[in-house]
């Protein structure tokens, strides 16, 4: 399928990562945070402080979805388990071995994988730690293996600001990607859909057993939710799973190498990074180690993930489980005299209201800070969200249904088809400065619990 998307908005930030792998960053301490996942309500801790674990040893599971094991990303000693409200385990800290020990899982050749049964694939994926790379829609959950997905979708490109270039990251990883696809095929009677940017040659074109879709357009064209909406939208009662090429790679490694290897190539980017580049890391690496000696000496904010959907982190935190980018941008905690009316071409705006001149130079790379550029107000403007959301959905009406706690209306207006990332641009362009992604998440959570 060829998909042409017109709506959206590209945010061209300064500080893109140079396509250069600058080596591996290793940390003494690695962490696992259950809070990286949505709606985990009945946590069960499977290790004690002081236990030694291998990469792939189960350390945690959710009793609500108990077939899924969350596993240690590295081998070593569990040095602490931090608990929060209601003794919810918020962070598992592992003091890593110098030489990582892996739990041995069965190894297969590429042709062996095609002969595996669904049960064998499920068993391997659920026990080894690769399963949480999958996301279940609606609601954006760690998938329940009993909900057989109608289809599985993978977006093979990321259009978020500063996002890593998958063609660079996964060059030479084709056999793992293919093995991942082959394994996932066992899990659905439907198809594996992979979207690539139209026109370019792509390493993903060589994958077999998948349905390739060529997508053209600006951000959010790379969002898997937008692609699903146009390829085969989700209706009530359906489950669709998604993953990323990172997920495919890890699943592929599990079957070909027989181990849970959480290594991934991520980008460290943004205007406050001295030399934005790619680095190899393992899941759960500490931010302090990641950014050590790599940041400019400025008042900056470190974001795990991209600047539209990410999480502000401190150096004591870790990179998010599903994040493959660390963005570092200036903090905007200063006053600006008459900043609401002075003409500016420096600040980026989707709008063209008086004095906003960024539309004159849309291609220019920009340094943007974290200032709200205004205060929260009532919803006044209409018709703008629709211009950055290439879906047949009325975002303001959906948000109002959520605020009114009207479940039927939320369903009717298509809440099953969206996750926070799809509304992130709405949050960016919003004149009223609302926390749209948070509101959407509240609606999704409320509906899921109901």
């Amino acid at each position: 399928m060829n998909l042409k998307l017109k709506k959206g908005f590209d945010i061209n930030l300064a500080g893109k990562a140079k396509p250069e792998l600058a080596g591996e960053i290793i940390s003494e301490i690695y962490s696992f945070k259950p809070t990286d996942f949505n709606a985990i309500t009945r946590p069960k801790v499977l290790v004690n402080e002081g236990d030694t674990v291998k990469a792939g040893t189960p350390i945690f599971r959710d009793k609500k979805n108990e077939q899924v094991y969350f596993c240690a990303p590295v081998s070593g000693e569990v040095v602490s388990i931090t608990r929060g409200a209601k003794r919810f385990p918020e962070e598992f800290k592992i003091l890593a071995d110098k030489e990582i020990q892996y739990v041995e899982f069965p190894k297969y050749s590429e042709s062996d994988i095609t002969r595996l049964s669904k049960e064998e694939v499920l068993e391997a994926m659920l026990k080894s730690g690769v399963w949480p790379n999958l996301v279940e829609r609606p609601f954006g959950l760690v998938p329940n293996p009993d909900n057989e997905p109608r289809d599985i979708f993978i977006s093979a490109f990321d259009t978020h600001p500063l996002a890593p270039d998958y063609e660079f990251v996964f060059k030479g990883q084709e056999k793992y990607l293919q093995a991942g696809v082959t394994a996932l095929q066992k899990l659905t009677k439907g198809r594996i859909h992979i979207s690539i940017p139209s026109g370019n040659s792509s390493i993903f074109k060589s994958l077999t057993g998948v349905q390739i879709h060529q997508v053209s357009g600006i951000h959010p064209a790379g969002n898997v939710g937008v692609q699903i909406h146009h390829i085969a939208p989700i209706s009530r009662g359906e489950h669709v799973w998604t993953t990323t090429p990172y997920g495919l790679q890890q699943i592929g490694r599990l079957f070909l190498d027989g181990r849970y290897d959480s290594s991934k190539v991520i980008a460290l980017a943004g205007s406050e990074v001295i030399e934005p580049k790619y680095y190899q890391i393992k899941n759960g690496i500490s931010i302090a180690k990641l950014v050590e000696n790599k940041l400019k000496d400025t008042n900056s904010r470190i974001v795990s993930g991209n600047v539209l959907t990410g999480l502000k982190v401190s150096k004591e935190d870790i990179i998010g489980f599903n994040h493959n980018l660390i963005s570092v941008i200036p903090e905007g905690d200063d006053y600006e005299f008459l900043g609401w009316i002075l003409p500016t071409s420096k600040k980026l705006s989707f709008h063209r209201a008086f004095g906003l001149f960024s539309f004159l130079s849309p291609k220019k790379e920009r340094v943007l800070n974290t200032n709200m550029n205004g205060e929260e107000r009532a919803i006044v403007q209409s018709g703008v969200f629709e211009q950055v959301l290439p879906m047949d959905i009325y975002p303001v009406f959906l948000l109002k249904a959520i605020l009114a706690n009207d479940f039927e209306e939320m369903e009717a207006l298509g809440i099953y088809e969206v996750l926070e990332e799809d509304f992130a641009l709405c949050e960016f362009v919003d004149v009223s400065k609302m926390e749209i992604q948070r509101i959407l998440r509240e609606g999704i959570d409320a509906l899921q619990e109901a």
Partner: protein
Amino acid sequence: MKFVRDTLDKIKPAFEKGGKLEKLHPAYDAFETFAFVPKHTTPKLGAQIRDAIDLKRMMMTVIIAMIPCLLFGMWNVGHQHFLALGNLEASFIDKLIIGAWVVLPVVVISYAVGLGIEFYFAVQRGHSVNEGYLVTGMLIPLVMPPTIPWWQVAVATAFAVVVAKEVFGGTGMNVLNVAMTARAFLYFAYPGDMAGATDVWVYTGGEKIVDGYAGATALGIAADQNTTDALASFGSFFSFENLFIGNVPGSIGETSALMCLIGAGILIFTGVGSWKIIVSGFVGAYVMAALFYVIPGGNAFMAIPPHYHLVMGGLAFGVVFMATDPVSAAQTEVGKWYYGFLIGALTVLIRVFNPAYPEGIMLAVLLMNVFAPLIDYYVIEANKNRRIKRLKLKIA
């Protein structure tokens, strides 16, 4: 600038929680955020960067779009004044001074009363002061006749802000356009000061009007007279050119279609006003007027060429500045086409068939404000039905 910041920082503690003037925090906040964009940063999770726009800038854009109408209105008040007194030699500056003398107090009263109420409600509710009134405060004077008594401006503003807006919850919650409500209030409460002959539409300053100066508006004449007389006057004083330029009597800011078009250009270019509403509004009026024009017989109004309808009275001003109010208009993009079209069409319908209310735009906008949610309802239902249909197809 540093001095302003320091002063604000110095008095800030008094307005914070636990301070002596804690209750007045919304008022302090309004002034502080007017001087400085606050140092608020984006929350921990979600969009870490935000667009440079905010509600203040958006509202200022609308005010800037109204400035041509305001300035022309001031000149025109002076122009009509001297015309009525038979003084054809008065200079541009003289006209502007007289106009400013008449218009500016109305602007000041509108802002003082409206903002006073806004601040009061903000303080009572502990909300921050919304910027919506910045626009309303300019719209109200522009739709008033130049001779409007000041106390009526104050009463109408108070009525509109409280009844049309604050009782619904303030900015963003109102059903009716606030400025139109103010005008409608005066129209029905004090009809003698809002419609009629010379003494309403032209500021005379108590002096005697020369013979031959009619001083009525084009709409008034068309509604009053028989066909031939109306058409005759439309040939000379109310020529298409004069109506388009706007050097005719009327409400302060509405007479010049040209200035409204400049405002429309600003609103459309900046994206602050919906081009769909503006275009469909004019199309609706033209189509309706053309329909009446080709029907033989009827009243004087029906015989007016359709393009006259676009430049007469407040249609242009209403379509450009009132219909595009995003809060009271239709909120769906499809709905905006219907909304605008119906405003234009209804305006002409009211003008032609209801001589008691020659100014149709006011009632048309208010009526469509009420129906806008219904239009949206059907657009949204269609969206929901597409989803239901998809589900049914799958099950079948």
